[in-house]
């Protein structure tokens, strides 16, 4: 019974996906799928961050760093040209192992680079390893210290991406090839593949949600909640708080990295703006808007807000909107948008105004 209640919403996701497809098709505006697909990949970051912030209570202002790390590693590996080094042992070994593919770049020149699968695996390894190395010291910190340390991490990634020649400096990396999942099924921005990509993106979201739901309903989830309520109490009851927090940190970094890899292959490019602090803050805003410890809220808000933002609905006020969301959420609805608004704060504010005036 309980498992039904836990997993039923997951089954609603395909219905939502098909329903949205139907609505777009009815409006004759399939092009909007592009923004939905991008929102879905951004939603992967949000799901991971929701686990970390909402359930484990640890703020991270560096998740755009992991997203960019994943995207950049994959982009750099699938666009590099190994032809000049073909005779070296390392490259040959990779070729024998089937890690390399030959293709032509957009100008028709031959190119030997890593296959997207190999790049994806490496990106995940790099993200996991970096998250672990950063996490081991940083997860011990609390509150402001943790927020600043993760912010620092995000800034360093941004600076490296902006300065390193491998990552294309300010231009980023373009001409990233499509990601062939199965023969004939690939992640890429071509119009002909749009509908397939739309369902692939929803599939990725479903997979991430399944993992996340399993995690919060397991012993780990219980431990995380106890940490969120009171770290000391959890610790005194024998919960290895440090290990759990670290595990969730790495897991959420992996999800962010996966989102980065997939979006980069879909867009065919990645630019330094993906690593900017504002992006990290945006993910935090979305998790806050979803109600912190509310996976479905985070997912919903992630899809809606990113979609609106990508459609340019906020115009010149794009970033200001997210700043406003952050403040408004904390002041009026700390439990998220999906719960009733806390009117007492408004009333108190008005009363204060009346008294002063």
């Amino acid at each position, binding site marked *: 019974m309980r498992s039904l209640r836990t997993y039923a919403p997951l089954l609603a996701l395909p219905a939502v996906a098909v329903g949205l497809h139907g609505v777009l098709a009815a409006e004759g505006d399939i092009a909007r799928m592009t923004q939905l697909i991008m929102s879905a990949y951004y939603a992967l970051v949000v799901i991971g961050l929701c686990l970390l912030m909402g359930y484990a209570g640890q703020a991270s202002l560096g998740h755009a760093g992991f997203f960019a790390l994943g995207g950049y590693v994959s982009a750099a590996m699938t666009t590099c040209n190994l032809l000049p080094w073909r005779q070296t042992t390392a490259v040959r070994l990779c070729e024998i192992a089937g890690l390399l593919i030959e293709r032509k770049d957009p100008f028709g020149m031959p190119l030997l680079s890593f296959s997207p699968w190999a790049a994806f695996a490496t990106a995940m390894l790099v993200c996991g390893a970096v998250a672990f190395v950063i996490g081991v010291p*940083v997860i011990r910190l609390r509150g402001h210290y943790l927020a600043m*340390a993760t912010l620092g991490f995000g800034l360093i990634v941004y600076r490296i991406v902006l300065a390193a020649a491998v990552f294309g400096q300010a231009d980023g990396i373009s001409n990233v090839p499509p990601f062939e999942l199965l023969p004939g099924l690939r992640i890429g921005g071509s119009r002909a593949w749009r509908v397939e990509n739309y369902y692939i993106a929803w599939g990725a979201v479903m997979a991430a949600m399944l993992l996340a739901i399993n995690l919060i309903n397991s012993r780990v989830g219980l431990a995380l909640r106890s940490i969120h309520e009171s770290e000391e109490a959890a610790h005194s009851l024998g919960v290895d708080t440090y290990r759990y927090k670290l595990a969730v940190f790495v897991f959420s970094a992996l999800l962010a990295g996966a989102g980065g890899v997939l979006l980069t292959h879909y867009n065919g490019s990645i630019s330094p703006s993906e690593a900017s602090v504002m992006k990290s803050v945006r993910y935090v805003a979305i998790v806050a808007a979803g109600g912190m410890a509310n996976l479905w809220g985070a997912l919903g808000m992630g899809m809606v807000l990113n979609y609106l933002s990508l459609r340019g609905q906020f115009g010149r006020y794009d970033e*200001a909107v997210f700043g*406003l969301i952050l403040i408004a959420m*904390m002041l009026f609805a700390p439990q998220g948008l999906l719960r009733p608004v806390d009117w007492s*704060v408004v009333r108190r504010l008005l009363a204060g105004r009346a008294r002063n005036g």
Partner: protein
Amino acid sequence: MVWAQIVQYCLSGITVGSVYAIVAIGFNIIYNTTGIINFAQGEFLILGAMTAVSLAQVMPLWPAIACAVVLTTIVGGLVELLFIRPVRQASPLRLIVVTIGVSILMREGMLHVWDEKVRALPYFTGSGVSTVRVLGAHVSPQVLWVLGVCAAIVAGLTLFFRCTLTGRAMRACADDRMAARLCGVNDRRMVALSFMLSAGIGALAGCVVSPITQTQYDMGAPLAIKGFTVAILGGLGNSAGAVAAGLLLGLLEVFAMSQLPVAYKEAVAIVVLLLVLVFRPTGLFVRRESASLRTA
């Protein structure tokens, strides 16, 4: 390196360092009374400088700076009143999120008011090319202005906290808010005052340094990071430590810059921040035992 070059580097390191120290002291003032790290601290500097640049077109320089400082002080008070005070169940996570939101709003507001052009106040004395000889090195007189004003701010704050009733009340709040309240200190007013004070000194520092570094709407966040690095390095809440740490970071940055590619300029401070957070989160100048007593 030649002697004159070393002096040159030292002076410019001390100059940026003293600005970092002021940002860090701004952090400390608010942290002491509220326990909040105000992520919008860097924005106060930029807001002050931008306002002064605009006002300087309609009035002489000095009144313009004075007005800018007053206006920013008022903004600081409003931030506390509108955004910080109404937050209930004020956990650090929640307050961090609020101040980040405030910093975004301020930055975007400045973008819409002043566009993204780089602006600067005129040099206070002389022009961009006039120099003063100090120990064999040539420096702009503005450098001396920055050092002087920052020293004056630190001295003024020290006097304020030691010798005035309000200053003592603020320190009492910092020590123990409940006890201060029992003694009849209006702690809410002290919190608002701390925001106004750190906005005000931030604006003043922003104005003095504007001719040298110039001012753009999005320069607040890097300043805040460096200010925070300095605040942590000197021990959060310890203003004398902040001054020493500020000068240290400024010197480190300048000498690292002379050896590293420019692109990694920002990274120096962040690496220092991460190292300090990992190895000595209580700061350089606090003994471990006393730090553990404080946090316990």
